[in-house]
């Protein structure tokens, strides 16, 4: 099912996907564990980077560069969400530091 150019590159890509998948899971665990809202926001931030990396890897994997635009948008936009969270944390005060699921 892999369609990288060579077995070598395919293997590298699989390793990359594996690392990214584990990272993604790691991010989600942090999201679940928190314990504070900022912790979760950091997890979200991390996941945004992973998504960028994932899209980039997938572009190589499929040989299609059209997905890069999605990565650019994530890179450019995701921090706005973080900014919003930061602002909320700032306003909501200490309460947001203990925001358990």
């Amino acid at each position, binding site marked *: *099912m892999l369609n990288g150019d060579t077995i070598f590159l395919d293997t590298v890509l699989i390793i990359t*996907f*594996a690392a*990214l*998948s584990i990272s*993604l*899971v790691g*991010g*989600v665990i942090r*999201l*679940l564990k*928190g314990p504070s*809202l900022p912790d*979760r*926001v950091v*997890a*979200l931030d991390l*996941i*945004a980077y992973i*998504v960028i990396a*994932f*899209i980039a890897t*997938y572009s190589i994997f499929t040989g299609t560069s*059209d*997905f890069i*635009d*999605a990565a650019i*948008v*994530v890179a450019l*936009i*995701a921090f*706005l*969400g973080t*900014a*919003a*969270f930061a*602002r*909320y944390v700032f*306003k*909501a005060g200490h*309460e*947001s530091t203990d*925001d*358990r*699921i």
Partner: protein
Amino acid sequence: MTILFSVLLIFAVAFVGPMAAKYLKNYSGWALSLVPLTVFLWFTGFIPEISGGSVINESYVWVSYLGINMSFYLDGLSLMFALIVTGVGTFIMIYGGGYLGSDPNLGRFYFSVLLFMGSMLGVVLADNIIALFIFWELTSISSYLLIGYKHNKEDSRKSALQALLVTGSGGLAMLAGFILLAIMTGTMEISEMFTQSGIVSEHPWYLGMLILVLIGAFTKSAQFPFHFWLPGAMAAPTPVSAYLHSATMVKAGVYLLARLSPVLSGTIEWTYIVTLFGAVTMLIGAWLALAHTDLKKILAYSTVMALGTLTMLLGMGHEYAVKAVAVFILGHSLYKGALFMVAGTVDHEAGTRDVRFISGLRKTMPFTATFGCIAALSMAGLAPLLGFIGKELVYEAALSASVFPLFLITAAVVSNIAVVASSGIVAIRPFFGEYKEHGKQVHEAPVSMWIGPAFLSVLSIVFGVLPFLIDGSIISKAAASIAGTPELVVSLSLWHGINAALILSVVTFASGVAVYMVWNKFRDSKGFQGYDRWMGEGPKNGYENILAGVLNFASVQTRFFQNGYLRYYLLTVLSFFVLIVGFTLFTKTDVSLMADFSDISFYEWTIALVIVVAAFAAVMAGSGLVAIAALGVAGYSISLLYVLFSAPDLAITQVLVETLTVILVALVLIHIPKFTATTSTSSKVRDGIIAGAAGTLVTLIVLAVLTVDFDPFMTDYFAENSYVVAYGRNIVNVILVDFRALDTFGEIVVIGVAGVGVYGLIKLGKSLFRKEEGKTV
């Protein structure tokens, strides 16, 4: 002039009525009476033709698609009724003008009463059964307005409603019956149904249809147990009662039975039901009259008795009965119309209608007294008045009844005994004896108020003494119409020799006088009041209980369904969704869980897992912000999924929207403190079950659809035209801005409106905005 024109003329004048009242003042009644008079005279012109044996059909296409024509049928029966309606109507206009002369609402009275008159005329003339129904309902509406004329009084409003609901429910049943009848016969023209009585009576729907039609007729004609609305309707001003309850509205039911008799009668069902209900009503009505002292109540119950008699006769359906119907209808219209007007005049002049407090008025009100007495004699069935002939025919009919003859004779006699007594009470009590002083100075009424009784009562004498004036011309043809035969020889005469009927009459009169003598004593007796409660008030209480019960049930069920709690609404909606979709899925398809997971790579599993886990985190999150953070993760993962499956535009859009969602939620939640509601475990479990069921259903449906051999046939078209015709290489975008630009246009309208709406919602709230800093909930 055509028949249609005659009806429309009266309707048209109804709209002029208020102006007439305004500008012509005291002469308005007289002026307006010219209209029914004209129509009356015009109809008298048909007498030779009709009595010559011909019928007149007049038909206009109305709604051909429904088979509904505005068609009229003039034969003996309808002619007789048309004459009664317009004839009595003429005097009612005059009387009404006098009676309500100073009332500021006189104009509305004219409007309603003329509307009623036109409708009633329509009822008796219509040939198309639906046209008849339409006029029928119009009489209900206009009589509602008339009964509720004194609408400031709660009693009037209630009585009007009562009459409307009772006759309205009957009307609806009747409508169903009519439709069935039309379907059974394949025509809506009554005149075309006459030939199909065999088909009708053997049709499996016959009994159902008959009952429905009878409910309509019985409610309108105040048959037991629906009779209670009629005395209640006495809340109306007297001109109204005089018109509606003597000659017209209540007779509509009788008319209907008579009209349809050729089509419906002759069966065992008809004979039993109609005869028995009639007889029972007759008995009950007659004796209830004696339980009251209000002139109008007495007259009302005696009207119930008359209607019962007519119904009973129509149930018998044989020759005597049919003749009796025709004569009795005419006789009753004349004397009852007169008597109501007299009662009204007495009330108007003496200020009360209670016979216990009025007597000796003959000296101050000689005309009124005279005509009242004549009418009462006719009602009592004394020779030589028309009432006598009618009553004799009733007895003859009962004597030759085919079912329960003994019961029917007894019932007829006993009822008439009560009527004799009632006649005494309404005619002798107020006018004879010592004049009683009461606050008001009593005068003779103006001419407008006694000319009606005068004409009508004199006619009772004229037709009684010279019955040939009516028998050949009208009565025999009317009777023939009822019997459904072209010719029915009716020779009316005062003297038939000494026969059974005459003997019964004598017995009746003697007993009636006796009852009159002891009336004062037994009227207030426990037993008789009990009878009134059972038979008079009982059904009325039944009606009120049903109404209250329905209203009570209405509020209970409304409180149950529309209970104000959004969660309950959602629970119901979602449960319904799960049940109906689930039921359909499991009964209509072979649910299979066939699924192939072999082509899925590990990172796709991971992303799927992340989406689910993040969404789960959003569900479990204690605060909205945490939920939104989790949702952001789910959203980014979904956009990754879009990337994996070749949808870069979607992925970008998803990321953008997800991010803006986070921003909005953060902006909003800054102002809303954390709120954790306590929910019981049982409701959590319940919600979980519904949620789980819905999710399972959706999964099953998607899996099922995935087994369908999918043909994305449109794709090629888009590919071929995307660049060649629409100059775009991004097919998705070309779909958005060109192939399906209308969708996109709708989409921007949606978000545009959302923007305008959010802006308004926030800014417009500012003036009302009363947020206290640090307010907690």
